[in-house]
């Protein structure tokens, strides 16, 4: 039996990505848990923003809405959604965390519809929300998600939120700000980045107990596997303790894992 479940593993690994002093824009659930864990461990100087207008609150517990009371609890500023998006557009925000029903090899996300008829979709999802703006405007887009071949698709039914679009230089060619884009995908199997030229998804590290077979079997597109991939360093006791006792004591998120 492992010392942690998949959710705990993904959150811990994601939290390590956030360096002290960085600025991160989060949503509810895994993203805010990740940011809180980082802030309570190695990154006390992390600035946390919420798209509804909350800036650097002293989060008492995890918000259930990106705009609920907690997101401005003793915050340093409470403002509009436009101003938060403008901070992103001005280059102030290092990381955003996003998810979606589908992701492709260039990190493009679908959270709009399933089906091939836009006017009468098989399944309607919420749509972009702030995701398109955040992925367009923040420096680095993070995705934390369980991996499966249903979610990792060759071609999303709808390209809601930009990753590297059609790969290569297509993202900047489309007009999106320079040097931005998907950074890491953290799943229950491994950590992925993107090939510096082609911008295809690429294995960076494999979680303990997982195999390259798992990587391939749980994706409908081919994930690049370079020679030099690493093994993921396991969550430490300290990380797990903080996550379980301070970040998510009622197991709202980690209970799902």
């Amino acid at each position, binding site marked *: 039996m492992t010392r942690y479940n998949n959710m705990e593993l993904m959150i811990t690994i994601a939290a390590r990505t956030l360096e002290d002093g960085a600025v991160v824009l989060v949503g509810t659930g895994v993203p805010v848990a990740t940011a809180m864990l980082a802030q309570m461990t190695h990154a006390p100087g992390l600035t946390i923003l919420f798209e509804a207008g909350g800036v650097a609150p002293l989060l008492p517990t995890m918000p*259930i809405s990106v705009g*609920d009371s907690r997101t401005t609890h003793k915050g340093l500023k409470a403002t*509009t*959604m436009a101003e938060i998006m403008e901070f992103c557009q001005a280059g102030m925000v290092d990381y955003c965390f996003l998810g979606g029903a589908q992701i492709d090899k260039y990190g493009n996300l679908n959270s709009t519809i399933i089906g091939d008829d836009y006017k009468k979709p098989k399944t309607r999802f919420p749509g972009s929300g702030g995701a398109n703006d955040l992925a367009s405007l923040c420096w680095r887009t993070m995705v934390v998600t369980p991996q499966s071949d249903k979610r990792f698709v060759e071609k999303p039914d709808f390209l809601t939120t930009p990753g590297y679009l059609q790969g290569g230089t297509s993202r900047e060619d489309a007009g999106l700000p320079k040097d931005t884009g998907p950074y890491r995908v953290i799943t229950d199997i491994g950590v992925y980045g993107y090939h510096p030229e082609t911008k295809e998804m690429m294995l960076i590290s494999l979680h303990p107990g997982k195999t390259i077979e798992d990587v391939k079997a749980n994706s409908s597109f081919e994930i690049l596997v370079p020679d030099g991939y690493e093994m993921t360093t396991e969550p430490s006791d300290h990380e797990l303790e903080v996550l379980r006792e301070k970040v998510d004591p009622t197991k709202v998120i980690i209970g799902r894992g």
Partner: protein
Amino acid sequence: MSENLKNGTGKLFTNVDPDKMRAFVREKNKKKVSKLTTVKEAVEKFVSDGDYVAIGGFGGVRIPVAVIHEVIRRGKKNLGFSGHVSTHDCQLLSAGECFDRCDAAYIVGLEARGLSSNARRVFQSGKINVTEWSNGALSWRFKAAAMGIPFIPIRSMLGTDTFNYSGAKEMFCPFTGKKLAAVPALYPDVAILHVHRADIYGNCQIDGIVVADDDIAKASKRVIVTTEKLVDTYEIRREPNRTVIPYWTVDAVIEVPFGSYPGNMPGVYFSDEEHLSEWLKVEKDEQLFKEFLEKNIYSCKNFSEYLEKNGGMEKNEQTYSAGASFKIGGENDPL
């Protein structure tokens, strides 16, 4: 260069011409007179079938539930609305089958709580004309309208289907040559907002997240405001830096305590998560949902009755004041 530029194919549901809105604003009575009224009168007077509606707040935070219920009770039809983080409000308008078109940035979901199966049914029916946007794009569309300009250039949406199904247009920056997305001003016919404090003239203060309420009020032809608390104008004049919405934009003011119920009111009360869960649950069964709506909306003569049926002031005072422990600020507590 322009042969390289794409236009979104989504329909624009509202006028973009700022001169038309200017002409409307010019004729609007901007005198400082009392706008105090009732929810019933406000909906009767200011919401008509076919209107395009914008709702303030953030889906489940600071939402004008009393007025939305009245819109449903009166059977308003063929509305348009802006799905700018539209969560419980989208769920409500879907329950009432009030609309036939939507600028969608965030619809059918209730954030971490899950998806509304009834709202999805409505949006999957093929009967709703939908145009896609991002939250930022809709915020900036309201801002362009508030600023009195026909569009704002932005750097998101580019390269995606969200753009392709939007009403935005690609353009080149006249200074840098960079490709930008131009998003058109959005002028709703009527805005429905809930705030912390307002005076009888419509000067409003908001605590915590403002979302887009400031711009929506300025962008809309008519504005209905419900307020947790009606205050004397003296309270407004005491702190002019706190006025988010100025009186001349507002047409109706109604005091509705707990008016964001079952949503959260920052610094005042928290959301009723039990009741919101019940909403999501009963929506899955058509008959149960019908009965639920009958009980909670159609048979209620007003918002107070809805509150009573769901625990009333007692539950409000107890359960919801608990949520007030997440203060904006936090008066007595050192860091």
